[in-house]
């Protein structure tokens, strides 16, 4: 498996650390109800198909990446930096 880091280029999967779904980017604000935190921390769409998830180029540039990916075919259709991402 290979991922194209927007900075480092195409690299082997072994350089990356996987965290989870992009949900982790939508941190509830202060004072949000606990149900929002349950959503944030635990509940997932978990699609069999295209998803967006978070990878960390741990052995490379140490950037967190938002990857658009198909969980069935493993096709990767987009990678962007988490820092400075388009909301």
């Amino acid at each position: 498996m290979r991922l194209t880091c927007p900075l480092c280029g195409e690299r082997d999967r072994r350089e990356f650390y996987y965290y989870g779904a992009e949900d982790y980017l939508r941190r509830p604000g202060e004072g949000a109800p606990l149900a929002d935190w349950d959503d944030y921390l635990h509940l997932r769409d978990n699609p069999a198909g295209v998803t967006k998830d978070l990878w960390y180029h741990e052995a490379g540039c140490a950037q967190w990446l938002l990857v658009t990916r198909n969980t069935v075919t493993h096709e990767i259709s987009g990678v962007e930096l988490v820092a400075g991402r388009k909301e």
Partner: protein
Amino acid sequence: MRYSGLKVITEGLFGNKGWKPAWRDPAPKAEYDAVIIGGGGHGLSTAYYLAKNHGITNVAVLEKGYLGGGNVGRNTTIVRANYFLPGNSEFYSHSLKLWEGLEADLNYNVMHSQRGLINLFHSDGQRDAFARRGNAMINQGDDAILLDREGVREHLPYLDFEQTRFPIYGGLLHPRGGSARHDAVAWGYARGADRRGVDLIQNCEVTGIDIENGVVKGVQTTRGAIRAKKVGIVVAGRSSQVAAMAGMRLPIESHVLQAFVTEGLKPVIDHVVSFGMGHFYISQSDKGGLVFGGDLDFYASYAARGNLPMVEHVMEAGMTLMPMIGRAKVLRSWGGIMDMSPDGSPVIDKTHVEGLFLDCGWNYGGFKAVPASGWCMAHLMATGESHEVARKFRLDRFATGHLLDEEGTGSQHNLH
């Protein structure tokens, strides 16, 4: 038809012409008292115990492919009851007891073999953590023995005690741990359920769940609509998709776990052995293949196949721990799709829909749970109450913070 050694001999003498099908191939009826979605190990055992323990036999198991085609047919077959946390301890303890009577109960040889499981540890801190776990196992009524380095050497003389990267300090021996023949477990439960009247319906995919006013009414399938008073979702690996049909969003992320088997070899590994400093566990099947595995590939996936970095990690772990296996050749690798929950423990619970029940989130420990999962899910579906050994497997425990996190790795689905 009852199986026995005598039956094998008499059938053999007459050309094996008299063997009957292990299960029927019925067409789905229009209505059942209960429908189980998923014909894997857990679904089949749920149906079996619904019939056997609760006398509910007007039951259908709906399987989109073939029986036992999910994780029960693609795992490393380890059976153990070595948990630390209350909630898990009693459940797996109950499961192990069921395993110990399974052949007699099912009249099917699932080759459950209590060859002993040894978890190796490689530091003083790990020793203490394993001792803490071993004491919990004994407190639960199960067995555990703390081995020092020499004790491990007696059992596993082939380990690399001299050069391995993380020296072997000792191991926690769980004598009643072991392995079983995975397919046979599915088939044994299937045959047992079928003999009690359960309809096992293969190639029947559920496409929708019918709910009216918050009450389940039945399911839509590729073979037509089926009405049911109670519906159980038992589809680990696909839980999120099926639960979504009932409007639910689950605390589950699907991950691929690879496993490996070598060519057949004469007996060389007697126990189930696991490494404490890398992800590697191994046993030898009765056919002679070394069956081993490691950790998840770590990215969400529904493709039942993995990638090389984890393959290599597993092999490297094997080489540092027991380099005598180096010349065994890997014959086949495969991947299974795991329901990973945020604390590594499963869910057996009611849902917000009346009559709809959920059994999911087995992470990668589902095989050994097959008997107790079915037992408890059947109890829940039959009585509406959680079984006493599955009471903590609540769906809302993540929201409330009553976690069952054995590894202590936190609410990241792939870390358990």
